[in-house]
């Protein structure tokens, strides 16, 4: 005999009950809570604005952001220090100093770093702290929520890196061969702005995806962006096409692309590696595609995954 039958035998479903005990105090509800007085639903863009606004507020209140901004502005000091302290030929050219800093630090280090620590965590923290439960029980479009978060990341990260890069450029003009007024130099600066924004798009979207899909987005991100990417650029063949770095490198000015390693010297010998170059146009398309696919996959993950499930069994 199952439990339902047991209770049915005892008349649980059939016996009427007296009124519940009315020892409760009475309360008068305000008008706004009465039925049919729901606030107007503003739709997709209201949710997108909310997601972006809330993420911006959260980011700006974090000490982590101040620390990241401080680190991102440190390269500004390098050209200044070089102009006073160094007498090497490298330091004689402001152009060389700026290009090295822009590529080695801003494009290859800071953009993935910002993406991992901010884009990835903006989504992952709602999952980890289980505030996702509140968001998923709102009539909020999941894509609007994801895009809002991503937009907030892009705004903050772009602002920090572009300002820092511009100041580094200004500081590099202390050296010869770089000027704040020369058109070709300013074009170079704008070129790097573009590369930084495109790199942030791709790295940011990929990190958002890691945040929505894995429990440890920073660990996986460090392995993939700092481990895998650098290994893939050394392995012969076409493996490097499965990295974001391949396409950000392709967008760098000529000087940088010429630095691609074609010979790898090791204790075992010297290996020659054929590098398949990608045109700037195709690199832009690839980066935009990585962004779109990553964000699309994030939205699908948010729609399909059961984020409240980790402690659910038996609850």
């Amino acid at each position, binding site marked *: 005999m199952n439990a339902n039958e047991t*209770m049915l035998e005892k008349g649980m479903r059939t*016996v009427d009950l007296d009124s519940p005990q009315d020892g*409760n105090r009475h309360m008068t509800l305000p008008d706004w809570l009465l039925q049919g007085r729901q606030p107007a639903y503003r739709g997709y863009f209201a949710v997108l604005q909310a997601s972006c606004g809330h993420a911006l507020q959260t980011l700006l209140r974090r000490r982590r952001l101040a620390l990241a901004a401080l680190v991102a502005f440190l390269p500004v000091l390098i050209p200044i220090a070089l102009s006073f302290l160094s007498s090497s030929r490298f330091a004689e050219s402001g152009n060389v100093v700026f290009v090295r800093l822009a590529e080695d630090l801003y494009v290859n280090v800071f953009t993935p770093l910002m993406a991992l620590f901010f884009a990835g965590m903006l989504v992952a923290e709602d999952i980890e702290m289980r505030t996702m*439960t509140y968001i998923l029980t*709102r*009539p909020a479009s999941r894509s609007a929520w994801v895009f809002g978060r991503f937009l907030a990341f892009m705004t903050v990260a772009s602002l920090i890196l572009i300002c820092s890069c511009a100041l580094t450029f200004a500081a590099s003009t202390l050296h010869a061969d770089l000027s704040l007024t020369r058109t070709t130099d300013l074009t170079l600066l704008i070129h790097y702005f573009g590369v930084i924004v495109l790199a942030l798009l791709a790295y940011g979207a990929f990190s958002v995806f890691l945040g929505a899909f894995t429990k440890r987005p920073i660990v996986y991100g460090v392995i993939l962006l700092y481990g895998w990417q650098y290994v893939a650029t050394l392995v012969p063949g076409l493996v490097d096409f499965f990295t974001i770095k391949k396409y950000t490198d392709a967008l760098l000015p000529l000087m940088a692309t010429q630095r691609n390693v074609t010979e790898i010297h090791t204790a075992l010998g010297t290996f020659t590696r054929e590098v398949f170059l990608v045109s700037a146009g195709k690199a832009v398309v690839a980066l935009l595609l990585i962004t779109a696919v990553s964000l699309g996959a994030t939205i699908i993950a948010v729609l399909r995954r059961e984020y409240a499930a980790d402690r659910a069994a038996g609850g």
Partner: protein
Amino acid sequence: MTAIIEAQGVSKWFGEVVAVNNLNLSIESRITGLLGPNGAGKSTLIKLALGLYAPSRGEIRVFGSRPRNNNAVMRRIGYCPETDYFFENTTGYEFVYWLNRYWGMSRRDARRAAEAACELTRMTERMHDPITAYSKGMRQRIKIAQALASSPELLFLDEPMNGLDPRGRDEMYALIQALADAGMAVVVSSHILYEIERITDNIVLMYRGTLLAQGQLHDIRGLIDRHPHAIRVESRQSCAISKDFLDLPDVTRLEFEENALVIRTREPNACYALLNDMARKNEGLIEGITCSDDNLQSVFDYLTR
């Protein structure tokens, strides 16, 4: 009356753990008490109805539609979870405001609704304080504020009495009754029968993921009353409190613990009434009340034998 929530053969499992097993259920009444011991599947059932989980088997419908990723259903629902989850570095007001914005309200509507919901839950004075500075009871109230701010038609309250002092519990009972009187459907989960008894006579009784019974309360209560009920009162003056309970005829035993008194009684309502009086007369005398579900467990054991 048409069913607000309808479950047909719903099962939900997580790996090898079955949280809800072949549940057939129809909820129509204004206030429904979801009753069962910890691990019965109450929260899982609520999350299935909220669309947070997809059923592993079967189908669940809320307002006639499948709730998962269904914004039309979500627009009509409010939810107060059992556990304390809050956005980082926010005040109570901001917490409600941002959730209103996520609901799709304009800035102005979200502000107004947040202020009104905080006022309703008596949080206006402290609404601009960080949530980290709130007591357990205040956190509970701010969670209820966010659930009510959009004026839902169906409200899920998962263990809403947790952490509330006697006065807070009284207010919660009154609020739930008032919401139901105003036409809102309320589903309240609890593992304590006497909490549910205060607000409704319609219960859904769950045990180990299965529906044990759905029906009227007093039949269960009859079974429960055969077993002494344990009430744990946290107080630094447990000796002083115990004196008043010695005279109650249905109190079978008083046990003293460190800064707490455990009362075993066959008539818990009389004890709760006395505790409420004490708490009102002397604020700070009672720091907390917890109710053991031992006796409920014994009824479940009896029913499932």
